[in-house]
């Protein structure tokens, strides 16, 4: 199977610079401070935010007068992949994703405004089809916005890779990832064009790094526009009945 056929189309019929359909919803749970659901193609992710709140006993040692302590957990449901997972969390891949998630969110959460408190961000991947971590970052951003936690700005992530003939492709699916070469995941602050995280699944030749990075960043820009519209639509729904908090 070729990643790009002779018409230049991918295995699922997309063009190299075309992202999968993005659907999202904020405020899916009522028992949390913030929550969001993001679907990118077949990848489905839930993000939930608790806080800011008093630091819980288990984490008491991490209370800081400088700012809030951000506690993340990345977990994949046992049914999320075609091969059943025995362990949802605490395995190497999830632990690594948790650390990366923490790093990415720390770039935008204005923790200095919430000293001595704790913010929990929990991710549950319900269906995995490539770009799981990227979708998780996007869902986490939406959940943080839903919770009203002050952010410098959005943090959006996207994947990119190289197709047949060294053509950069954006938003890599599971099949493309398993067949193809290295996948690059980039997390970006779209309004200030800053990069918060870059992760590569394998080695990349230096010559190709720039075009693939550019493709990923374009993907982030597009994703940002979609998510920002969703936030505005959600705000209009929850704001009108109370006149947007104004007297």
């Amino acid at each position: 199977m070729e990643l790009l056929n002779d018409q230049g189309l991918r295995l699922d019929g997309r063009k190299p610079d075309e992202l999968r359909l993005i659907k999202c919803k904020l405020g899916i749970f009522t028992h949390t401070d913030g929550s969001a659901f993001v679907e990118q193609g077949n990848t489905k992710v839930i993000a939930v935010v608790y806080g800011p709140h008093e630091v819980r006993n288990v984490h008491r040692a991490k209370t800081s007068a400088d700012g809030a302590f951000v506690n993340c957990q990345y977990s994949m449901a046992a049914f999320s992949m075609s091969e059943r997972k025995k362990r949802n969390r605490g395995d190497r891949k999830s632990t690594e994703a948790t650390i990366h998630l923490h790093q990415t969110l720390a770039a935008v959460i204005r923790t200095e405004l919430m000293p001595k408190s704790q913010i929990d961000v929990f991710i549950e991947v319900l269906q995995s089809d490539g770009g799981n971590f990227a979708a998780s970052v996007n869902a986490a951003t939406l959940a943080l916005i839903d919770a009203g936690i002050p952010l410098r700005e959005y943090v959006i992530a996207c994947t990119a890779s190289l197709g047949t003939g060294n053509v950069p492709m954006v938003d890599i699916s599971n099949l493309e990832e398993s067949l193809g070469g290295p996948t690059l995941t980039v997390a970006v602050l779209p309004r200030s064009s800053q990069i918060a995280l870059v992760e590569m699944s394998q080695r990349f030749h230096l010559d190709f790094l720039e075009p693939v990075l550019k493709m990923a960043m374009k993907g982030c820009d597009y994703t940002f526009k979609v998510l920002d519209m969703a936030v505005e639509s959600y705000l209009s729904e929850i704001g009108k009945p109370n006149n947007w908090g104004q007297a």
Partner: protein
Amino acid sequence: MAGLDREDIGDKSVSASFRLASDRISLLTPCEHPELYTPGQDIGPETGLLRGHGTYQDNGRIKASVAGVLEHVNKLIMIRPLKSRYNGEIGDVVVGRITEIQQKRWRVDANARLDAVLLLSSVNLPGGELRRRSVEDERMMRQYLSEGDLISAEVQNVFSEGTMSLHTRNLKYGKLSQGVLVTVPAPLIKRSKTHFHTICGISLIIGTNGYIWLYPTPKSTEEGAGGFARNLELRVEPREREAIARMQCCINALAESRMMVYDTSLVAAFEVANKFSVKELLKPEVKLEIVMLTQHMMGLNC
């Protein structure tokens, strides 16, 4: 205990209704909106403007840090997030739950970023003995308020990192007795002159922090909402229970549809809810009808 009574069992028919996702009813609809700002969005140049909550300064520009509507108060600009934890202000009336007993103070969960404190010296206790420095402090304190107890109190002070200090130095505040606690997002509560209400036969304390306490109206004026005695013998009458359940349903319906929760909206919602039997109140279509008729009665329409 009587023996197996078959007629008894036959009487109790279980009521369970399974709905499909396609029958879902939403209490929210997209509407027109004023200009909305989202995190990172540029608001304007720094000069001549005072930045308030929900904004930050970056390279000479003011940017939004939460999603919401921009508010101007003279030169002060701020953005209020539609959902957030409670930000206490001095003088607010709150309802809270004791989480911990510490040296000469209790820690209280009041739906805020940090637990509030209730100092032993901020509490009216019978007799002055407790003011003495005594080793038995914690035991004595536990007699009055222990973990899990609910209180109504006023915000006396707010410390720099955001911790509130509460006081119950007024007869109307103190430990809460039998009743139901309902939680709504704090931004849906209006600050008003009074937070103690009696609506349609039952009493409410609408905490500015989003914790609302529903309780049967005390029979005699001597039993205030305050005091520290435990009242486990009282048996609330069915009529009052129904009213409390109905009011709880109204509060939840208003909160789910993001309407402000205060005495006027609750009175209107309760009136609408009266036409339903108390067992129907959880049905989504009943909630929708309560919300729509209440909005209509109050002249709010999308």
